[in-house]
């Protein structure tokens, strides 16, 4: 699936702190590197927390029907 181009607000301050802590916790719990990488791109770089973007980040193909 084509990667979503949506962009959100810049993530700064407390939300950034919380998102970074979340991603670090995923790393420590050995979650797949590609999932963490996509989540980082969505949350920190694009600043978007919309459902399609996060679903895409979690499942890569944005398809939970399969």
């Amino acid at each position, binding site marked *: 699936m084509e990667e979503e181009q949506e962009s959100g607000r810049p993530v700064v*301050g407390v939300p950034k702190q919380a998102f970074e802590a979340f991603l670090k916790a995923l790393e420590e719990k050995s979650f797949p590197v590609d999932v963490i990488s996509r989540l980082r791109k969505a949350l920190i770089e694009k600043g978007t927390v919309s459902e399609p973007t996060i679903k895409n980040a979690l499942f890569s193909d944005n398809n939970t029907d399969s």
Partner: protein
Amino acid sequence: MILVDKITIEEFRGIRNLPLNFKGENFAISGPNGTGKSGVVDALEFGLTGNISRLGGEGTGGISLRKHAPHVDSRDYPEKAKVILELRIPSLGNKRVRLERSVANPNNPLVTPNTPDVLGVLDLLEDRPEFVLSRRELIAYVLAQPGKRSEEIQALLRLDQLGDLRSTLKTISNTCNKEKIGAKKAADEARESLAKGLEIPELKPEKLLEAVNIRRVILGLAPIDTLTNTTILHDGVKTGAKGAAIPKINKVEALADLKTTKDLLGRLIDPGITGECADLHVQLTALNADPALLDSVSREKFLRATLPLIVEPLCPVCDTPWDIPTLRANVEGKLKVFEETGKLRSALERRLEPITDLFDRMRTALFALEKHAKIITPEQVVHLSTYRAALDLKARKIKAFLPLSETLLALGEVGKIPGDFNEVLRLIDAALVAIPEPSQQEAARDYLILCHDRLETYREAMRRLKKSGEHADLAQSVYDIYAEEADKVLSGVYKQVEKEFSEFYRSINSDDESEFSAKLIPSTGKVGFDVDFYGRGHFPPGAYHSEGHQDGMGLCLYLALMQRLQGENFTFAVLDDVLMSVDAGHRREVCKLLKERFPDTQFVLTTHDEVWLKHMGSVGLIGDTGSTRFSNWTPDHGPTEWSNRAVWTEIASALEKDDVRSAAGILRYYSEYLFKDIAHHLRARVEFRGDGRYELGDILSPSVASLRKILADGKKAAESWGHAEDVKKIEEKEKAITEAFSATNADQWLINPAIHYNEWANFHVADFTHVVEAFHVLVQSFCCDQEGCKGLYYLAFTAPKTLDSLRCACGSVNINLKKKPASN
């Protein structure tokens, strides 16, 4: 983030043209209500963000930025309404930036230089209008309900992104769980279908291979030893163009589907099912006849349906904010009332489940049979599909439970099979029987093809089930980890804010609340806020503390939150008349707090209180040029700064137009403004007022008396030194002040109310002209007469507090007040 050096406001809100030089330092704007202070606040917000928050929100319907931000006389020319800011950006090496924003094009300011680093900083500002704090917002932090406070604080800290991600992850997790349940059901159906196709009672690999290998032996194919994920059951069977033609209909499969349909039909009219339906019908009929009970069931069902929806701080339907714990507790409390009703309804629904399950399976069987009927008896398809649709409708009504009348109707028709339906099945049966019996080898081939097809369906269903399970597990664990980490970070933030808030508040109330502490108590969807009350315990801020203390708390909480939010980027804040209830003593401490704890933050403060302004100056929060005073405001001219205006010319101009009222207003407010300064500079003995609101009658006479006393002391000192010339000059000044004061009739105000300043507006022009002249002369008695100075007299002291002299700024007035020491 930024410092503001200068703002120029043109045709904006109530302002026509106003430049203010902040010089990147703290700046105060004072003036009575309605003189244009808030216009400057709006201009700062608009200039930096392109928005004016006061023009949005509750109670501002019909007001828009484009229509109402321009000055009223330029309302049709939004391009004329503009704010020009000269900024510095400390994080970019104090880079200077010019930003010009017009109301006509608020989202596209002219920025010079418009380099990416500068634009990045300005973008952040646009997204953070919280640098403006008004008293309304300040009170919202302190006195709001916990849920509302949570919103306010979350908005300030930009925590909505945290809540949004939590909500998104929860939704994804719920969706995955639903999909997992659907996949499980599909896998079960595929498993059952495969077992039926294989004609084995239970789907086990060895049983499958046993059944399949019997057919493979018939076809002369090698048996399959092991069942793997890629095993092809009909491997080796000739199919398609190269082999025997595949029949259009698989007789074995079709007969099996027909049998399933007949079996299920038999179950629908089985006495066990019909008896259960009849019994349920009786109970539901009784329930339906009891309006109170029925109402309880309806309410209970509705309330139970709402609980899963109360997971986010907003109603999912109308976005109205709610306090999650309170609402959940409320719903759960109501559900307890319906506990018995709930149990009854759940029990009935559980008994109805086998019936709807039977309907579902019957619909699946009919659908399979329709595929065969389309080939061999197309005219029967409509009967099959009609019955299938009827079963679907009944199943949905029974699953919905309410309204009961519909459920009863559907339940009464469970065993009701369309009159001609058995004939339909008979005709399909006959058509299938008419198909020539396959040979043993053909049957074996059909069997293997059918079973492999169903095996593939089963494999795919299992793959989906596995994947959906993995997705559900991943989504759930990601949600759990996020919730834990976000809560940890939030708790830490709140702890830090709590600590800093308490420190700030203690510092402004060190005289009586040096042991003060506060508790910010975050929980899902709310933030509790309790503060210590003189060691008696922790209570909500509004419980016992005065309004003044609450104002102080609001400011301290704001500062603590901003410090947490922006850290070293907290370089600019506008405090719009935020401490109106704080008493004078504590204001001084507030000034110290702002000056000492936030040395790198530029504050722009507005106040209608002159005393507050003086505190800012005396504590050093603002410098000598760090303030302006608005005197009055008119639609034509906007706010007027006292320091810039030619007061006497304005009064004369008003009198020329017979406008005594305006002239009287200017004279009174200017005199009050000026004599407060004079009283301050000459240490006049003014009767103390706790609220610091001194009228002209309170300060004029003491100011005159003070100057007279100082001159008298100066004369004695000059005499003691034998300075006859100085004595003479002082006597001239004494005479001048006495005559000037007498001319104002101020000494008669108490005994002749007709000449009191409150009545000035009712004077005739000629009478008031005399008053103006007298006051003009009186004012001059307190000022240096040198052109280029004209400064007010002030007392000079030598350290620590020894009275030294009366002086003016240029030094041409310098009256020694120290007598020559007596010689022994």
